[in-house]
């Protein structure tokens, strides 16, 4: 709250603790991220020094080269992109139908369905690793990317339904009804009228789905075991130190490369959907 007061010097003095707290908060937030990037650009001898400089004295791209040329980097990158895109598109298509049915149509069992979606959104996935592993093994789906795609689809689906339902409900049905009066079919009316208005909602949910699937570690770690070629980036990064030992420069370069798409996407979508994500109760 900003209140205007006359005694300016007194006010500035009183606000010092506030600014100090703000500076501290920003520093604590940014320092680990900064240190990741700074380490990634530092020459190795500066990294393995007992007096590390806060700002790299010299800049190098060596570590990025090491990370990119690491065994299978391109492959894991491709795997991550494939799994992520597959899961997001599948969730989007399935959720669009369900969200439309919930927001626009009346049918018996609508409320129980909404309830089930909300329960699914709270699903404790950490406690389902064991049965999912056993089921995948029984059905010969271990070590395969489609398995991961399905799991990520299910993790993102409930949220996508909830958010899209909100967006669809926000579009006045009269618009579509008018189009129907003018001779459009129900599907045609939805496609021509509501769908374009849904673009921000589709954008927001798919970007969120992207972040979730891109970052997922647990299932990628336990469902891809023998087939190392099917690994995704988070698992690769988590085992990076075993591969590269004490090469922290390369490890930080790999972390940066892995975090970059998520950071870009997140910062791009932040303004539009922070409130939506908050309402959906979603862990970033």
């Amino acid at each position, binding site marked *: 709250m900003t209140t205007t007061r006359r005694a300016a010097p007194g006010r500035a003095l009183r606000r010092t603790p506030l600014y100090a707290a703000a500076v501290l908060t920003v520093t604590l937030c*940014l320092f680990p991220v900064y240190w990741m990037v700074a380490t990634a650009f530092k020459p190795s001898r500066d990294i393995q020094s007992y007096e590390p400089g806060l700002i790299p004295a010299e800049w190098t791209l060596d570590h990025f080269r090491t990370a990119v040329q690491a065994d299978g980097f391109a492959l894991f990158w491709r795997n991550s992109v494939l799994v992520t895109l597959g899961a997001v598109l599948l969730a989007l298509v399935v959720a669009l139908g369900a969200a439309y049915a919930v927001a626009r149509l009346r049918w018996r069992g609508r409320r129980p369905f909404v309830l089930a979606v909300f329960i699914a959104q709270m699903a404790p996935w950490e*406690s*389902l690793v064991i049965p999912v592993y056993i089921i995948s093994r029984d059905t010969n789906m271990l070590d395969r990317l489609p398995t991961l795609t399905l799991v990520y689809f*299910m993790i993102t*689906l409930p949220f996508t339904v909830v958010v899209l339902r909100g967006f669809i409900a926000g579009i006045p049905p009269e618009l579509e009804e008018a189009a129907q009066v003018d001779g459009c079919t129900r599907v045609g009316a939805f496609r021509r009228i509501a769908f374009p208005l849904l673009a921000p909602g589709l954008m927001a949910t798919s970007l969120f789905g992207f972040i979730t699937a891109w970052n997922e570690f647990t299932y990628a770690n336990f469902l891809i075991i023998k087939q190392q070629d099917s690994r995704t980036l988070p698992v690769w990064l988590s085992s990076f130190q075993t591969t590269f030992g004490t090469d922290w420069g390369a490890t930080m370069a790999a972390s940066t490369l*892995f975090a970059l798409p998520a950071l870009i996407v997140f910062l791009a979508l932040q303004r539009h959907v922070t409130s939506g994500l908050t309402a959906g109760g979603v862990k970033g």
Partner: protein
Amino acid sequence: MTSPVLRRAGRTRRPLAPGPYLLIAPAVLGMLYLLLYPFGRALLISFQDFGLRELIRGDAEFVGLRNYRTLLSDPVFWDVVRRTFLFMAVNVAAIMVLSTLVALMTERLGRIGRAVVLSSLVLVWAVPVVAATTVFQWLFHSEFGIVNETLTDLGLRSFEGYAWFADGRAAFTILVVLVVWQSVPFAALTLYSALTTVPGELYESARLDGAGGLRIFRSVTFPLVRPIFMLVLSLEVIWTFKAFVQIWVMTRGGPGDATTILPVYAVQTALAHQRYDLGSAASMITLLLMSGVLALSFRRLFRQEGEHP
């Protein structure tokens, strides 16, 4: 939502048209096969004798409550339960206190300061879990880590080459710091957006009535943001279990079992020691312990969504 008139008309005209059911069928199938079925399977296995042999041959025998008895009579399991609650309590308390302070602070800042703080929070929120975990391992590296360097430079010689991950308590503390660092942004941003909805006149009149800062927070601010505060609180409680990733990547539950919380214990028991039955039983006990908070936050979330669709 459709108007009441339309609703009634729709119901009388076509009570069971196939359209809506076709539209939700894929979602329902997904939830049944990928959520309900795994859950049912885990429940079933927790009542069976299910080890490596049964995994391969698939003729598991029912043993009633034996797995649960085994777990509940194991002091190690109780240690894990206690540690889980400790981990949860410390994390959630730190997250709620810090994020409330950050939210209150952000609200008092000017336009530029506010934008800087909010952007930093979003940036932290966006850092992938595995990347953040790797960075924290580097920050706390025994030999070249910046934390040890700084502490040593500050005159605390005992931190020279201090191996954080070799000591149970130190590793536990680092995990708490990491989880708090990653969780505060969401909580603070949510609380901040709740704070901005409190009308300024309320503060004015409270101040005119002679209320101090603390008193205003207790009697004006907090009651108004309480629903959001409780929602964030219960979500953070549930999300404690998501710390599985940080723990697994950083310490695998070690050293010893100093950082083993319930989900880590369940996965270790099942996938590392091939005791799928005990692991599933541990998961079921975890769910049971969570179910209260789960139901509570579910209700809050549902109500929140119902009010602003």
